[in-house]
């Protein structure tokens, strides 16, 4: 018997958004492969296209794929609706999670677990499971009764995203700046939540971040640098250390038109 691989493959992905001046190309040929159990970090300056990439993977209707492909274990992800992608095992922790007034967290979590698992989880074990996951993220049980993200602080929203990841057990999790807006304690707790999912080895993680501080808690095997809609450099964890020191200047100056040699940062691509 062979173990399921769970591989997300992104090939030459081109993505545009509709603007008042017409379509604008944001991703200009992205290639990326994430396998189950691997952790990849994508780093890059503001506006380089990191969120665009994550939304495109999740299927946000605002982003139009104009070229290239995304597959999960060979299945055409781009042909799936947003909900079908989630059921196929793709999870996106959003940079700015949305408030849904009046829909309680508990109702929401159960509806999504039912959809993703294909059957309603047994109530008793489910309640225990949710409670344990909330405890691990140091979330007050009272959150279960609140509206989804309604009035949550930035840090609470991020914990809620990771709570969902823990419960939905995706094959591929895209975490879009889950670390931003977190104070030191919250960063430790949220990182612990991500690490717990990662340690199970069943999820491939694509960690999008602007800063290196979360990488002190979660060690990626692969680091990719994105600038102007392309992956312009790739390497191992040491690349993150270089970025910490020198920032993104040289990539931004290059405008992503030509990829700086990753070898300079000791990259293995």
């Amino acid at each position: 018997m062979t173990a399921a691989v769970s591989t997300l493959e992104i090939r030459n992905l081109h993505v545009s958004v509709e603007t008042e001046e017409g379509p604008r190309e944001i991703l200009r040929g992205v290639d990326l492969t994430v396998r189950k159990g691997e952790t990849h970090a994508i780093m890059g300056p503001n506006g380089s296209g990191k969120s665009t990439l994550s939304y495109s993977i999740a299927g946000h209707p605002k982003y139009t794929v104009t070229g290239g492909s995304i597959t999960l274990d060979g299945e055409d992800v781009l042909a799936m609706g947003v909900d079908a992608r989630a059921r196929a095992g793709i999870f996106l922790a959003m940079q700015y999670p949305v408030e849904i007034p009046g829909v309680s967290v508990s109702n929401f979590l159960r509806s999504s677990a039912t959809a993703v698992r294909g059957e309603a989880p047994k109530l008793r074990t489910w309640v225990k499971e949710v409670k344990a996951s909330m405890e691990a993220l140091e979330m007050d049980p009272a959150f279960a009764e609140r509206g989804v993200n309604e009035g949550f602080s930035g840090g609470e929203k991020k914990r809620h995203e990771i709570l969902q990841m823990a419960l939905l057990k995706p094959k591929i999790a895209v975490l879009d700046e889950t670390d931003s807006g977190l104070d030191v304690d919250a960063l430790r707790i949220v990182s612990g939540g991500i690490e717990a999912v990662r340690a199970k080895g069943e999820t491939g993680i694509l960690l999008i971040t602007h800063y290196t501080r979360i990488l002190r808690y979660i060690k990626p095997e692969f680091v990719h640098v994105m600038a102007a809609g392309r992956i312009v450099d790739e390497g191992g964890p040491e690349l993150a250390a270089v970025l910490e020191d020198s920032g993104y200047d040289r990539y931004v100056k290059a405008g992503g038109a030509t990829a700086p040699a990753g070898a300079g940062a000791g990259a293995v691509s």
Partner: protein
Amino acid sequence: MVVIDATGRPPMASGAVPRPLRSRNPLDHGVPTGREEAWRFTPLRRLRGLLAGPDADGKVSVTVSAPAGVAVEQLDAADPRIGRVLTPADRVAAFAMARAGGATAVTIPAEAALAEPVIVHLHGESPRTAAGAAAGVAYGHLSIEVGPFASATVVLDHTGSATYAGNVEVYVGHGASLTFVSLQDWDAGAVHVGAHAYSIGRDAKLRSFTVTLGGDLVRLNPTVEYRGPGGDAELNGVFFTDAGQHQEHRLLVTHTPRSCRSRVTYKGALRGDAAHSVWIGDVLIEADALDTDTYELNRNLVLTDGARADSVPNLEILTGEIVGAGHASATGRFDDEALFYLQSRGIPPAEARRLVVHGFFAEVIDRIQVVEVRDRIMATVAGRLGETPADDSAEALAGAGPAGA
């Protein structure tokens, strides 16, 4: 194409709340042409002649079930309790008072604490005929009195079909507390025009819910007056306006004595071609109404193209010494980002929409303490959206955790 009117439209600059003529004589009220402020949104032809006060040729039966101690009587037309709270402000209300031939009165004695709700079931027994003739005309009058320091829940349940002009007078005694639900769950062909007048005693509390789901045309005119300081009126409303339906709620809260509070919260969802909702929220704070605290809100969710929501809040303040006065009105479509968020968690689009609508109404509906009524409203809304109600494990979770907040 979607027409969304009055999205966040500011109130009339000077905030002049209209003062309609009040009289029991129908002929004192002019015949509307449709250009009057009070009638400009109403499709007059669909009133099926109610403006002319035709003889009744239909029937709305009234059945009251009430806990022991509650008096249910039939008042004759000359009874002084008729007209104590309501003086009609338009022709239809005046005709209804003149033609109802008395009233059904429900009296909750002083200091009674009712454990069970009083249910007043009004059933229209005059459906549109097979030949397509309009539902028969019927008039009605209800008079509800809550004695001093009593607490009670009264549910008015309108079902069936008729062309119905019905008034409701609610007299809340000093220190009393009333939860009042008026549910308009008419069959498709019904027309319902009603004046609902509430008089709030000193330190009394009214919590009302006006829930309009059915009918071809429903036009309700809730008004609140206070007889002494410390009165508190919460006017909640929910409507679901489907293709072709006209649902109009025109509220007027008049703060005359000092230190009274009012909260108006109406939420509507509209769907389908020519679905039309109208919400008018007039609040008048008179010169002696110091320490008034008022806020009114109308939010509408337009679910499809072709529906139209008119929303006009209007606040007139004649004293500077108030605690607070405000209003908000917003009409919007589905929040695409919310739908995306839910779907990105595996929830299919139709269920995502149902969750969002459920959540939109929950703020108001969850306040209704009468479980059967609350469940029926949610089930009706869910049914209209073509889905089954959500499996909600909220209570199980709350029960399992230490925090029940």
